[in-house]
């Protein structure tokens, strides 16, 4: 007898994505949909898409959705959540979106303890616009606007979002995960589920930072990109839970 043990989550449309081969966004979308399905909340979810490669996320996940302006998803989430406190509100944001243009919005959503969940996709690059430097671009990384490799004296240092947000009292759950290999993907899903549960339990702001591969703008094959996450990104961006509702304290790397 054949028993299906892995299939497309129900809350995802059965369509092909617009992402490049090997892109991390697809994996993160699936984790999101799985968590939504497992928690059985699809009918009370409101999602906010960013401007970035994932702007079209609403083409893949079958819930009420806004498409935000670049960086402003947390403000839109705030407006929505204040009107409908019973909705489960999430934003899905890239590193340009969240850590650059949307810096003020994410910090103040966290400071207010806004009861929303943020999926933060850190791929160390501006994917959609063609590979410009992101605040999360790592030292030495070449991008179309750091053509000689990011140098601290010229382009400054990478921003560690999870660590920074963990300093805010309103932040209840903050974790960093990765999606380049199955064991990390399993851990990532656990963190994401915890983040949504934090919201469902009304405990305040939750954010999961996903290290994610962008083979196209890193100029690598998908396999090379996976290795690059392991070898370059994780040392710069340590994984772990930086804050949990239990501790509400900063935890050094997991």
């Amino acid at each position, binding site marked *: 007898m054949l028993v299906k043990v*892995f299939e497309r989550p129900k809350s995802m449309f059965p369509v092909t994505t617009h992402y*490049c*081969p090997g892109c991390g966004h*697809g994996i993160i979308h699936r984790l999101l949909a799985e968590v939504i399905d497992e928690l059985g909340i699809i009918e009370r979810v409101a999602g906010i898409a960013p401007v970035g490669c994932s702007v079209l996320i609403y083409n893949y996940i079958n819930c009420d959705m806004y498409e935000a302006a670049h960086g402003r998803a947390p403000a839109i989430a705030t407006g929505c959540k204040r009107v409908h406190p019973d909705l489960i509100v999430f934003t899905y944001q890239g590193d340009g979106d969240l850590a650059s243009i949307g810096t003020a919005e994410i910090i103040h959503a966290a400071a207010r303890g806004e009861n929303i969940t943020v999926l933060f996709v850190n791929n160390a690059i501006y994917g959609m616009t063609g590979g410009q430097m992101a605040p999360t671009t790592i030292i030495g990384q070449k991008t179309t606007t750091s053509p000689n490799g990011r140098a601290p004296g010229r382009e400054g240092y990478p921003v560690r979002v999870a660590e920074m947000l963990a300093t805010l009292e309103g932040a209840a759950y903050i974790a960093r995960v990765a999606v380049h290999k199955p064991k990390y993907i399993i851990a990532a899903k656990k963190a994401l589920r915890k983040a949504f549960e934090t919201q469902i339990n009304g405990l305040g702001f939750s954010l999961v930072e996903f290290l994610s591969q962008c083979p196209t703008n890193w100029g690598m094959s998908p396999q090379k990109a996976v290795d690059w996450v392991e070898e370059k990104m994780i040392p710069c961006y340590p994984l772990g839970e930086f804050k949990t509702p239990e501790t509400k304290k900063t935890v050094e790397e997991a």
Partner: protein
Amino acid sequence: MGGKIVVNEELCKGCQLCITVCPFHLIQVSSNINSKGYHPAKFVDPERKCTGCTLCALTCPEIAIEIYKITGS
């Protein structure tokens, strides 16, 4: 109790991540080209080694893989 995967060739973008992670090297690149121009992944398990461990599906960005466990008879 073994497993079996089905790759949706139209959804697959040939990123080969599944190929990398299968512990038994049961996935290969197909010589077919799909309508988007990609060479999709192909399940090749003549010795029925697949355990249905789902690692390949977990890592697939396109949800192009469905997995079945073969139980009982």
